[in-house]
């Protein structure tokens, strides 16, 4: 998920003039009087009279359609209005059963069967069935819906093809479709392990996933299930899924010509064949019966279940969407599936949800209402919280300047975030093309000092520390300015006597490019100062307005270094390592290594959890050795909640399943400090 340093702070702290000083005198007396009261908590701690939680959701939601909007500000609201097959655990953010009571995964993580609870209902009383999930996923992938989150579902068989309006190739003579395996391009089949070095274990034969191989019976495909017989029937659709993958080509002539030019064998074969568009019905989701949903994947994806709680996969009501079109999310039309239903929506102001008595778990939902305020200005949020008009805030709402005051308070919440800050190197041009230069720049930055200064954690490797228990994290290079200079000499920036010569180093060919949000600029200035101090080189900082910046990054149109942040889409290391799975997309560095991709593929084929983590860690090591990125810090979440708010925990995602949140009126049971996370 994009991480533009959530929230925009208007800089009225920066330019308080003389005039403010005049008034300030009168304030000092007032300020002293007020701060004398409550030192344990920040501001008022009177619980609201009703069972209501007043929360801030961030900037205005783009839409109440969970498949349209991609942001966290919307996710906070969707968590109340819609439910998925799974839900995030309030403490670990790992998937826990929701509308799916349980699920089974086939032997190589390429097919999953979800068993739905029979009492799940929409807010209008309609039962939620497997068919609704089939509709939801197909609809999210429909090209005309143009969901920007659709790529999350690309792991499902033919989902990408359908979303891209691609075509199958049909042979009218033999009444068969052309198959991918007959025309496999060079880049499609990773050929192991001729290039493998000693440290890389030989990859296993990379056959197609089980979901693309014919099976004798469904039971044979899944590991034995002890508690009950598998009820899943084999079906024509299941057999279609289990047939070898078909050739998929772009629908437009230009794209197709390009694809065919790259594969002459295929070009010869398509002559005289028909192009049939990939349809919604071809996407690998199947309602085996009303309460059994089977999803066939195009590849092995052990992280797929943790994706199911994402907003894109939360179930929506077919009749409502089809009947009202665009207007289905209007307050008088909307039908929802979550523990809460929409009561009122005043855009740019507030959105009120009420407990939905239709929800299958309604008896356990304790809040009657949640009021989401659409606020963007952090100072305004802090003011409202302090005045007791907000009960909790979202992540990054305590800015560094406030930490000294707020961090000692008992209602301050903090945890390492499933999100990282790093700089990208442009590995395609300039001095940063040389890995030694990249390594030297990385080694010449004291990340610990920087992290201490901003009260966060330093990041030497790429994976956020402590988020994935049992992950054998490799170590990046430590802070070592001497070695950094040595490397720069090796890279050809030494003088006659073999010492590093800052004059020779072409610092003007490098810039630190950043957008101005949040702490990005202070970080850039710190790093600039470090390089000046440790290497004697001055690298300029270039600030770009957000959209301009992102447009430049996407095209690799930057000199040397550019800032980036990434927060997890789902709780698995792949959400971070996958950034460099393709040379395009979110890569942004120009670095791409087939060996790295091979390792990731192998990891995703690996059933054993710990073994998989080990292979992923090898991939991370490879990434760190090539240094296309300079890891900086792990963000920490930093927010506040009143002591009477229970059921909200400082987890890594700061997304909360609202049905478990409640207002505690007994002061003895209040949270004094971070609540117990291990219970």
């Amino acid at each position, binding site marked *: 998920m994009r991480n533009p340093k959530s929230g925009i702070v208007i800089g009225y702290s920066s330019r308080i003039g003389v005039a403010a000083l*005049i008034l300030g005198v009168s304030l000092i007396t007032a300020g002293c009087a007020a701060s004398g009261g409550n030192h344990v908590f920040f501001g008022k701690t009177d619980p609201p009279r009703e069972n209501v939680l007043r929360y801030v959701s961030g900037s205005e939601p*783009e839409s109440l359609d969970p498949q349209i909007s991609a942001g966290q500000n919307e996710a906070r609201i969707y968590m109340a209005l819609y439910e998925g097959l799974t839900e995030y655990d309030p403490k670990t953010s790992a998937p826990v059963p929701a509308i799916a009571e349980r699920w089974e995964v086939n032997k190589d993580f390429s097919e999953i069967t979800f068993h739905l609870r029979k009492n799940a209902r929409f807010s209008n009383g309609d039962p939620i069935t497997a068919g609704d999930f089939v509709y939801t996923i197909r609809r999210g992938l429909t090209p005309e819906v143009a969901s*920007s989150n659709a790529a999350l579902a690309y792991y499902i068989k033919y989902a990408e093809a359908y979303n891209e309006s691609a075509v199958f190739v049909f042979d009218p003579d033999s009444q068969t479709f052309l198959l991918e395996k007959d025309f496999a391009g060079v880049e499609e089949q990773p050929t192991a392990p001729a290039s493998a070095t000693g440290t890389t274990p030989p990859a296993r034969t990379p056959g197609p996933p089980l979901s693309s191989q014919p099976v004798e019976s469904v039971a044979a495909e899944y590991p034995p299930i002890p508690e009950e017989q598998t009820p899943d029937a084999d079906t024509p659709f299941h057999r279609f899924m289990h047939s070898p993958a078909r050739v998929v080509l772009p629908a437009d002539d230009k794209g197709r010509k390009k694809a065919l030019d790259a594969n002459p064998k295929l070009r010869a074969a398509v002559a005289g064949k028909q192009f049939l568009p990939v349809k919604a019905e071809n996407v690998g989701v199947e309602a085996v019966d009303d309460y059994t949903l089977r999803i066939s994947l195009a590849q092995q994806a052990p992280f797929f279940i943790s994706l199911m709680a994402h907003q894109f996969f939360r179930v929506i009501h077919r009749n409502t969407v089809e009947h009202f079109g665009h207007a289905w999310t209007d307050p008088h039309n909307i039908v929802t599936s979550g523990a809460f239903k929409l009561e009122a929506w005043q855009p740019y102001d507030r959105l009120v949800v009420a407990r939905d008595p239709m929800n299958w778990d309604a008896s356990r939902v304790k809040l009657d209402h949640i009021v989401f305020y659409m606020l963007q200005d952090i100072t305004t949020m802090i003011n409202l919280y302090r005045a007791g008009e907000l009960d909790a805030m979202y992540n990054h709402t305590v800015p560094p300047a406030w930490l000294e005051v707020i961090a000692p308070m008992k209602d301050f919440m903090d945890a390492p975030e499933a999100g990282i800050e790093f700089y990208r190197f442009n590995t395609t041009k300039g001095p940063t093309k040389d890995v030694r230069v990249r390594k030297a720049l990385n080694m010449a930055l004291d990340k610990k000092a920087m992290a201490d200064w901003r009260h966060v954690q330093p990041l030497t490797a790429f994976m956020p520390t402590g988020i994935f228990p049992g992950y054998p994290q490799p170590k990046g290079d430590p802070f070592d300015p001497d070695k950094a200079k040595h490397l720069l000499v090796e890279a050809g920036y030494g003088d006659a006597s073999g010492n590093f010569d800052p004059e020779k180093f072409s610092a003007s060919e490098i810039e630190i490019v950043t957008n101005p949000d949040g702490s990005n600029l202070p970080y850039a200035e710190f790093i600039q100062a470090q390089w000046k101090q440790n290497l004697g080189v001055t690298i300029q900082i270039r600030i770009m307005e957000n*959209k301009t910046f992102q447009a430049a990054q996407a095209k690799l149109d930057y000199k040397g270094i550019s800032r980036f942040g990434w927060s997890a889409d789902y709780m698995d290391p792949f959400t971070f390592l996958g950034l460099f799975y393709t040379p395009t997309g979110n890569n942004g560095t120009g670095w791409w290594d087939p060996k790295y991709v091979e390792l990731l593929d192998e990891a995703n084929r690996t059933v054993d959890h710990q073994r998989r983590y080990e292979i992923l860690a090898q991939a991370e090591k490879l990434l760190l050795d090539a240094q296309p990125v300079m890891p900086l810090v792990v963000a920490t979440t930093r927010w506040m909640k009143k002591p009477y708010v229970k059921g909200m925990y400082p987890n890594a995602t700061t997304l909360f399943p609202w049905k478990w949140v409640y207002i505690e009126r007994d002061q003895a049971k209040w949270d004094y400090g971070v609540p117990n996370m291990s219970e």
Partner: protein
Amino acid sequence: MLRFIIRRIVVIIPMLFIVVSLTWGLIRLAPGNFYTGEKKLTPAIEKNLREKYGLNRPWYVQYGKVLWNIARFDFGNSLKYEGQSVNQILFRGLPVSATLGLSAYLLALFVGITTGTLAALKQNSWIDYASMVLAMIGISIPNFVLGPLLVLIFALNLFWLPPALWNGFPSKSIVLPALTLSAIYIAYIARLTRSGMLEVMRSDYIRTARAKGLSETQVVFRHALRGGLLPVVSFSGPALAFLITGTVVVERVFALPGLGNYFINACFNRDEPLIIGIVAFIAVTVLGFNLLVDISYGFIDPRIRY
């Protein structure tokens, strides 16, 4: 008079055309799109989005559509806020901005004219000096400083008023934003009134009025104020237009759902129809209020005839 008004109304059309075209061109020049984010979209998804919103059509088709939309007073749908029309957003944001703006405006007129008149009548007294010092302070403190200061005192220390949010009118929630917004206008109006009054009070017709034996109250209210307020009128017409069409900073600091808040976000979001809609609306309002000011001159100042 009627001819003058018609001529002025006709002029609005080319003005609007220029404003809209310039805005449209500037949005084109700004890099990035409403869907550009840190997370890069796959080409297929980007293509789907461009097709859905008609961005793949040639520029003259898109430009033509913008003009055609404006001719019909229908600005189309927002790109960012799925399924919401720009008109809907305008009609939702305007009442909030207008309520706030009008409250601030009336407050500014009342306080400003009163202090300005008092200062002029008691020239060089302590009232004059005190009110002009306060006016200087009002002009020099930007509202992004004044707003938080007022919040600090009245919301966080005294707990009298809410620090932010909108609870309609009348409610406690409008007091601080209206005060913040009006401060600079109070200051300007007070100074304009004072100088205007000082000038008028020395003029011949006031001397005549006094010579007729009118009481001082009658001199001030019936004769002096009419002339003395002319500068205030020409200042406050456009000021009202800007006040009721939304004020970015105050709406942001107090988290009010007004047009200013929509406008600033529309720019950040590159939400073309919404930006153009709001710009066109503000342009028409400002031109309209200027016209009103000119017309009102005819009534206030006996020397002006159309």
